[in-house]
């Protein structure tokens, strides 16, 4: 079992995930855009358009304009998800000692890493619950929701909960995960951590990555394409005084 789940599947998943995602983006890029579709007011320069994209991707400006409640749920979820993902990368790579770069001791760094990770995880759970309850409780939202809209939320909820379970009840040391992932990345796989919570967590993540290129999760990449259509700087044929 652990050979299949721990060694074989991760490679298949990562190839399908990256391949599928890149394929989708190439498909978008290949379709022409015959007309300028700018929605005004729009930035006048490329720099302005990029700034616009940043405001949108980091601050969720459009949601803020129209629906502060949804903005809070969506922003909280996405920001904490970003923090969790960055936290995973940094925390596992440096085994929780990354804050030593800023002058802390090893223990302080590990502690800080745990504290920040825990709060980010709670925020992620909270954001997910807000989004899920919002979707399930409003008749309007139920009308526009498909199975996958719930599925994706539940899947991420499962990932977050199994992660938090590991954090609180089944401590899996960074170093073990680090060796395992390093083995995978260097093509010299070793046995995965012998921990069922970890395996549940890791498998759910793989399922999510598998589903990613075929689902609405592609908005993470598509967002940049679709926003560029309406925010790209518009050059006038003749500039009037």
């Amino acid at each position, binding site marked *: 079992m652990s050979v299949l789940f721990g060694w074989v599947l991760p490679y298949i998943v990562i190839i399908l995930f990256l391949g*599928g995602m890149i*394929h*989708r983006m190439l*498909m*978008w890029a290949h*379709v*022409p*855009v*015959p*007309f*300028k*579709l*700018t*929605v*005004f*007011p*729009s930035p006048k320069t490329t720099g302005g358009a990029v700034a616009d994209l940043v405001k*949108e991707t980091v601050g*969720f400006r*459009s*949601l803020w*304009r*129209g*629906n502060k409640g*949804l903005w809070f749920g*969506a922003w909280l979820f996405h920001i904490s998800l970003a923090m969790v993902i960055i936290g995973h990368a940094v925390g596992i790579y440096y085994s929780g000692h990354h804050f030593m770069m800023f002058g802390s001791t090893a223990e302080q760094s590990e502690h800080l890493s745990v504290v920040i990770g825990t709060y980010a995880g709670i925020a992620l759970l909270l954001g997910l619950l807000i989004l899920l309850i919002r979707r399930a409780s*409003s008749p*309007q*939202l139920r*009308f*526009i*929701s*498909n*199975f*996958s*809209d719930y*599925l994706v939320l539940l899947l991420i909820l499962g990932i977050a909960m199994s992660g938090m379970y590991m954090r609180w009840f089944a401590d899996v040391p960074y170093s073990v995960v680090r060796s395992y992932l390093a083995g995978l990345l260097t093509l010299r796989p070793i046995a995965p951590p012998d921990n069922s919570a970890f395996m549940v967590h890791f498998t759910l993540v793989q399922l999510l990555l598998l*589903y990613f*290129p*075929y*689902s*609405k999760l*592609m*908005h993470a990449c*598509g*967002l940049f*394409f*679709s*926003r560029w*259509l*309406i*925010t790209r700087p*518009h050059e*006038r*044929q*003749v500039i*009037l*005084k």
Partner: protein
Amino acid sequence: MSEVRIPYEAKEKDLKVMHVGAVPAEERPKAALELLGEMLKYKRSLKLYLDVCTHCGACAEQCHSYLGTKDPYNMPVARVELVRRVYKKFFAPGRSFLRAWEGAKDIDQETIDLWYKYFYQCNQCRRCAIFCPKGIDTAEVTIAMRELLAHLGLVTKFHAGIVKNMKTTGNNMGTPLPAILDGIEFLEEELKEETGLDIKIPVDMEGAEVLFNPSSSDLFTNTDGFMSVAKIFHKAGVSWTLSSRIAETANFGLFFHEPTMREHNMKLMNAGKDLGVKRIVAGECGHGWRTWRMFTDTINGPLPFPVVHLFEEVLDYMRDGRIQFDKTRNPELITYHDPCNYGRGGDLMDQPREILRACVQNFVETTPTKEYSYCCGGGSGILMDEAMEIRMALGQPKAESVRATGAEILCAPCAICKAQLPVVMNHHKVDVKVKGLSDLMGRALIL
């Protein structure tokens, strides 16, 4: 569908001008799939918008169509979902069970009936694009789907009539040249009577500086605005002309038929080239302006002259001191309606306001305003009498925002808005007169 469709469908004989034939009802689903497949190959916006929506629903409460009708299919997300579900079934990547999770659904005649119904309840106002975190512009989908329906032979009677008029006379109203010339002669007399001046309205004057392209309704109902324009050119001392080939700035092709839109655009540009003008000045029409401003380059390539809006032209005169306004002649409380295709669609938000401040005494903004402004409810050519009930519902959010200002005059410088808003305001019992900005400029102009 046995009941009569709203809006009324054009008959097959009326479709010939658009070079489309009617596809028999039972063959429509198959033909629709082929057309959708083709469109996905040349409209990135369509493909993206079908792919990246997360069903967050941020658009729902921002759509005046949903707010006014409370019909769940009028939430932009649900409107687009009518196509997305077919896209998921036949075009989206992935195993069929994955696509089923995303709401994939087969296409049948009922789907096409729903398309016809709901894509003719979207005003293509693009307000949802302002609030959508992915920037999904539902108007793009509506435009594409109406085009698809047109290729199936499903065009509204109203729009088909307008395309026919445009092809035969160069204007939407179908006014033949002798009638236009008769009308212009009459207006010159009226101008003389009113001002005592010989203010000319030239037609086909070669070498004129400006080719002015009005909406044809300016020569039927909105004549005050048109006369104001003549006065302004006269006062500024600019040589200007109309074209006998085209007296129509509204381009209904944009709403549902790209070939018609392109043809119309080329017609004006060719008229401008042949007359050797220095500028084309577009009159009061929202979507027409978007087409001239945003699409002309794609259709006609670089032009020897710019296409500018009347307001930009007037601002030039104002700033140069060639014309002056006496704002005491417009003492009423006046508010401004941003036509969707001026604001969100055409980068024309500050210019009309600068003119308004110069020619009216009391100006008040509506809430919301500018790019957040609601559509009049007639946008995208939903001006058919048979759709009156829907039109009044679509106009409801606008009516409320105007009521809240307490304004006596609603300045709405777009021919569609001018046709729609008086009926809407009357229906919702908002006591306000609707006027173009030209009308107000004309009243305040010091001759």
